[in-house]
């Protein structure tokens, strides 16, 4: 039996600013992970990643990252994605500056 699919988000870095962005359900790139589209099946995930890869003028290095649902939107599963959506731990820089 196939392993159950871990929900995914599409994430990348913005071409001009270099910061972390996420693909939304209505095909925008957002800076906020909770606005990202949480993808729950493998076929949609592949398709959404292809759509992201077709936008090299917007983003660099899109990939699928594991995520989990929450009442406020997708949450990271791995600590790397937690750091990406927050910023470094030694200074209050990056996304956390805007919070």
């Amino acid at each position, binding site marked *: 039996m196939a392993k159950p699919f871990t929900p995914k988000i599409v994430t990348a870095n913005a071409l001009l600013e270099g910061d*972390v962005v996420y693909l939304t359900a209505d095909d925008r790139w957002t800076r906020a992970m909770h606005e990202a589209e949480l993808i729950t099946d493998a076929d949609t995930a592949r398709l959404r990643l292809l759509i992201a890869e077709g936008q090299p003028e917007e983003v660099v290095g899109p990939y699928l990252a594991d995520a989990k649902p929450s009442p406020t939107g997708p949450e990271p599963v791995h600590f790397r994605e937690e750091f990406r959506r927050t910023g470094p731990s*030694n200074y209050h820089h990056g996304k956390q500056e805007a919070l």
Partner: protein
Amino acid sequence: MYDYTEFDAAFVAERNRQFRAQVERRIDGSLTEDEFKPLRLMNGLYLQLHAYMLRVAIPYGTLNSGQMRQLAYLAERWDKGYGHFTTRQNIQYNWPELRDVPDMLDALAEVGMHAIQTSGNTIRNVTADHFAGAAADEVADPRPVAELLRQWSTDHPEFQFLPRKFKIAVTGSENDRAVIRAHDIGLQIVARDGQLGYRVIVGGGLGRTPMIGKVLNDFVAQEDLLPYVEAVVSVWNQLGRRDNKYKARIKITVHEHGIDEIRQRVEDRYALIRPTFAGIDQQLFEDIKAAFAPPSFKTASTAVFETARKTDPIFRAWSDTNLAAHRAPGYAIVQVSLKAHGATPGDATAEQMRVLADLAEFYGHDELRISHEQNVILPHVHKSDLPSVHAILKKHGLATANIGLISDIIACPGMDYCALATARSIPIAQEIATRFDELRLEHEIGELKIKISGCINACGHHHVGHIGILGLDRAGVENYQITLGGDHTETAALGERTGPGFSADEIIPAIERLIDAYLDHRCGPEETFLQTYRRLGMAPFKTALYDREAAYAAE
């Protein structure tokens, strides 16, 4: 110091013009990311976790005050007001935006600096002993040959698509402060029968397969050095494993073929290319050497220094740890710690950079150095000026008296910034420094090198730390492995793994247990951690780390 010739300036300007156009073509869609990436890497531009990162070369770690002020300007104008000095004597800016990078490179060119070959499969920034030209124990200043190598390797047509990156370090002293045995090529200036030449060490490196370099040649004469080094790189360029990134470095080539076969191949290649070096490089070398003529050292009384040592205990503590012996009478080498307890190792604010530039200009013959240990050096300060220098450093958070001690930690950026990292390094360094400062144990512990890497690529040199810490991802949790007994000097050794790793919460108490074991077992305060480890081996430290019941019983 070496100043750019018209040729250098024109070369960098042309490269910057090309890169500006490449950035424009990337933004307007003419270049794909796959096409653009090798071009940006050639110019030191990475894309990291949260932003782009620009790595600027500080050749052989030497800067003048004007250059340091320009680095401060870049930090304020295009970054978040600080820069990060690295273990390869570079500076990294963590927050530039793509459109701004060409302007940053132009600003660097104004002071004879660039980011060329700070990345990619090329010969990287040539590093050198940070005490070069000042050390009391030096045979000769390693910077002229480092500059010669920089010019030779920059845009060298044969070496732009090497199997992997290639790093060269040079020291002019038997006491190795440049980690030459952990470089692809390490050069040591040696004297033989009144002639200066080079001991050539090859195949050292850290990373996933750490190796201590082996002596390829005990003495290469000055005039033969460039063709000899070219022969080495050339042999590896042909043999190096392009099929497997993890086996591509020259250390693997040397390991697989054996040092004797490599030596023979280098000799053959050398015989072939030696005649093509007609001596222009030696004329150039003479010009470069002249540019590195020592400053005119002054003669003055050092009474003020002696008095300050007697009357000011803070100054005395600082001068005990942060000064090193200078070759000129009355002078000292000042090591400015960028490791204030709890701060990020290697980070300096724009304001601190300007203060350091001012100190260099007024008290230090206009010279600064960046050490691979992520500190700043004022190489030539007369002892009579030290109380003034110390007072100014103190005002700007730069007078931490901890050089060579437990809080003088090397740490790579780790997962706080780096896209390759598997765990964070910086918070571990911050917590260790803070903890041992609270315990007031730092000076009691004495000489100790802790080096932390956030992945197996080992930018934080953990393999050669007396205590090495390697951050890994174990089933989605940060986990830290400890190695003991590493040594980065002329007695280079790789650390040995203690056993299973520790979580982020457990690693600081684990380090504390190690230190307690050392303090319990050492013969006396004069026996360093490394000496105790070499005398007793792993056993008592392993017990301290893993045998909790025994540890409690001993309390």
